């Protein structure tokens, strides 16, 4: 990839370029069959973005259907307990369907109709993106097929039930590791044969251009609100912003509006799993190498032959061997710092946050909270950390009960 710009140095918010490059990362590595649809999507998205009516409609839906803006909440007891910096939660868990994923699916559903496409497909890991897609499709009367790995179907039963209730067809994926990565493969294969009349609502900032840009833009409502709310409530910007990173959509949406605010430290938290050996974690930006996966050039957990490695996380939404190309760009420019939190720590944090704050976070989000708590202890009481609480934990109750030896 020698033609591309040098990434070392300051991260720009003016990315990607027309070829879908974030520094050297991104681009399009997909079969020719999909190229025309990606070009069309790029053109139509640019038009939609500049269309006041599209934006008015999306904002109206976000307000009346999704329930935005959601609050920036001071986690007072958690802050007291850590005895350091003040911890605030950006409450994406309060959105309709319980996670940030719906910010993207409402936008992409509007795009689907704008392009005259008649059917929607999606992949899902934790099921939150599947539920958010099924919900958007029910709202607009679009037929919807969701691909989901068998292992994730087991882990996230509640969401499977919700998707089906919303009228979506959930297709179990039995290939490979039966998780998010395989669900994306299957959705892409469906799209190869259905691309003329079907839109693929990709659920994270991954995949070929323009998906990483579109999903980031639709999710940026998180960071924009959090930024304004910080200025309103604390009178200044936070010292640090923390979010969990699976494919990287809640974190990209949270970070992007802060990228040019040099004084705000940005930290992405990946799944540390059971340990640091290959196969035990899903910490792509810590242990991965540059490579190509799912149509995009980014960091990947892969073996020396370029074969994708198996990964592990307690949380289905973080259990992914790739990461969005903009995160790779932020990593290499040093704009965002990436760390990881282990399974047990995330699991303990779910219970702790439930008891101290009366909020049941998703396992994904609790990775971010766990790190924010560690960080708060190292920071001064006048400092502020804002955490993206990307989703609520209802979907995880079966799994948490099983892992903590309780009956449901």
């Amino acid at each position: 990839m020698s033609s591309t710009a040098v990434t070392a140095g300051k991260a720009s918010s003016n990315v990607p370029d027309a070829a879908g490059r974030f520094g050297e990362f991104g681009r399009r590595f997909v079969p020719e069959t999909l190229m025309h649809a990606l070009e069309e999507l790029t053109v139509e998205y640019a038009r939609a973005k500049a269309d006041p009516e599209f934006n008015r409609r999306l904002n109206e839906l976000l307000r009346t259907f999704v329930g935005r803006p959601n609050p920036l909440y001071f986690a007072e007891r958690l802050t007291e307990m850590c005895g350091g910096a003040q911890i605030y939660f950006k409450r994406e868990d309060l959105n309709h369907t319980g996670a940030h994923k719906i910010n993207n699916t409402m936008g992409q559903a509007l795009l689907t109709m704008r392009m005259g496409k008649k059917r929607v497909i999606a992949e899902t890991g934790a099921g939150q993106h599947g539920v958010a897609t099924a919900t958007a499709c029910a709202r607009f009367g679009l037929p919807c097929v969701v691909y989901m790995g068998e292992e994730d179907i087991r882990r996230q039963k509640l969401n499977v039930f919700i998707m089906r209730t919303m009228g979506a067809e959930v297709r179990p994926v039995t290939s490979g590791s039966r998780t998010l990565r395989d669900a994306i493969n299957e959705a892409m294969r469906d799209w190869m044969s259905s691309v003329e009349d079907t839109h693929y609502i990709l659920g994270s900032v991954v995949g070929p251009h323009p998906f990483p840009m579109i999903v980031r833009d639709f999710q940026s409502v998180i960071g924009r609100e959090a930024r304004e709310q910080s200025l309103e409530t604390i009178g200044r910007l936070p010292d640090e912003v923390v979010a969990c990173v699976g494919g990287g959509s809640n974190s990209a949406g949270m970070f992007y509006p802060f990228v040019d605010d040099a004084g705000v430290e940005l930290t992405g938290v990946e799944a540390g799993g059971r340990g640091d050996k290959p196969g035990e974690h899903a910490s792509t930006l810590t242990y991965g190498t540059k490579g190509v996966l799912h149509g995009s050039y980014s960091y990947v957990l892969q073996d020396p032959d370029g074969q994708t490695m198996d990964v592990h996380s307690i949380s289905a939404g973080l259990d992914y061997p790739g990461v969005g190309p903009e995160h790779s760009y932020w990593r290499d420019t040093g704009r965002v710092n990436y760390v990881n939190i282990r399974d047990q720590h995330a699991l303990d944090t779910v219970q702790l946050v439930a008891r101290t704050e009366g909020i049941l976070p998703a396992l994904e989000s609790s990775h971010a909270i766990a790190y924010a708590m560690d960080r708060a202890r190292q920071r001064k009481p006048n400092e502020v950390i804002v955490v993206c609480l990307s989703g609520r934990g209802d979907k995880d109750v079966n799994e948490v009960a099983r892992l903590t030896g309780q009956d449901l």
Partner: protein
Amino acid sequence: MAFMPFLTAGDPNLAVTTRLIEELSSAGADLIEIGFPYSDPIADGPVIQSSYTRALGARLHIPEIFVAIGAVAKKIRTPLVAMVSYAIIFRIGNEAFVKLAAESGFAGLIVPDLPGDEADEFQTLVGSHGLDLIQLVAPTTPADRSARILKNASGFVYCIAVAGTTGAREGLAPQLADMLKTLRTQTTLPLAVGFGLSRPEQVEQLRGLADGAIVGSAIVRHLEELSTNPGKLEDVVSRLVQYARSIAAAAHTSR
């Protein structure tokens, strides 16, 4: 018309692969595509996916493919073309990969996830080693786009017969003939059709329209049995070769 069968390297093992290369060569193959097993092949249907999974399950490593091909390429006159994901090429290193491919005797590369737009630099590199980078055109490719893609193509053009993944299908898509006619006006390179071909009748229908028939899943499918029944090797090889002869005959009589 040329008969261009596809084999997965390392399914069930490289010894069988190299033997099959020789058998296909004597059965009338005019070019053989060698698939490099990849963990996440989004352009492939269930048959080739499973074949890749079997090869990787047997712990096949990419450098071993080059060793095996290097040995067999010397013994046959049929050109060998690698079908390989850009994920693998990039990881090995573009320069290193192309050098290995050239040294082991490959005549060209098909990189299904490196579309024309992204291929410029890589094409130059491949060309500088005397290999062809085969370009693909799909039913969803508009004519102005295929004209751009074909401008600096070499070797032959891989014409994808259906929008979809690899895998045998019943007939031929009705738009295929129009697509091939358009491509004829855009290039003088041979047009080879792939994705979905499995029967002699389909090959016959391509008469006058295409210069090559690529058959993948229908060949690879023969090897499935070996994963549960390795003792059947001789049976499987003879059935595969017999099948290949039937396609070769259809291709060669429909010039």
